[in-house]
């Protein structure tokens, strides 16, 4: 049985207020990522005179939103 000294230090518990703030953010992560990606792609389309970058930006933004969402949830559900 491992001694208490050899156990890895537990992550400090966050207060309820910090958790509320952190999780209210989640509702905005996916739409904000999608819109930000689309806006960036559209700006690049105008700048580089292309037509496909807005679609790529839209997809990347959605992926970025999901990555951020999963990252936040995993960070607070894993021990």
């Amino acid at each position, binding site marked *: 049985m491992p001694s208490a000294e050899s156990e890895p230090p537990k992550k400090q518990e966050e207060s309820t207020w*910090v958790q509320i703030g952190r999780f209210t953010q989640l509702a905005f992560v996916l739409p*904000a*990522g999608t819109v930000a990606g689309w806006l960036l792609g559209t700006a690049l389309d105008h700048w580089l005179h292309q037509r496909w970058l807005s679609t790529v930006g839209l997809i990347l933004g959605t992926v970025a939103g999901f990555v951020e969402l999963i990252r936040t949830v995993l960070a607070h559900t894993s021990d």
Partner: protein
Amino acid sequence: MPEQLWFTHILNQMFAGPVTGALRALHIEPTYPQAPINNAVAMELVVFLFIIAFFLVVRSRLSVENPGGVQHVMELVHGFVSGQAREIIGHHSENYVPYLTALSIFILVCNLIGLIPGFESPTGVTATVPLGCALVSFAYYNWQGLKHHGAWGYFKHFMGPMPAMAVLMLPIEIVSHLARLLSLTVRLWANIFAGDLITLVFFSMIPIGVPIIFNGLHIVVAFLQAYVFMLLTAIYVAGAVAEEH
């Protein structure tokens, strides 16, 4: 001419000429050259002047032996922000407390000023004021990350833990950081705008009693949104200065 609050009207009467001249020097043509200062800018100026005057008064009355009520309140605010920053950022969080405190007080006063008749919440009038706050926070946490890790060290944060995935992770991380800018802006603006609108709608329907309930709700939302904005900025600073990714 746009609809102007009394303070905006005074500012435009006094400074319309120099402001329009300065904008034209920057190759910006104002929509209304006779009134280039809008309500949001005027209300921001009111908030700025109020905060400066308030802290000058607080500073002049600081006392270790006999602290007054206002000093107690400000010590409480500072202690609360320090505690939150320590919990989120960890060691050396005290370096970031001045910015976080200033940001939360500015946003809180901006949110609350709309409750006074004759004034408007600059954070609820247009999205430009929340966008300004979000841009400053965005620049701040990236600058702190650059200062802490150096240019290459901070850039590596954007490439993820696996070098093979760096090509994919870099654009995803860039979009993810830009999304923070958007979500900070939209959350603050939409909440305060909705609070103002609901109060106005109910005031027009039932002008006695009921608006008090919605004003109370607006105060809660004002505190909550100022807190959430400060908290998320602290979370972004913590992410930028963190040693591991």
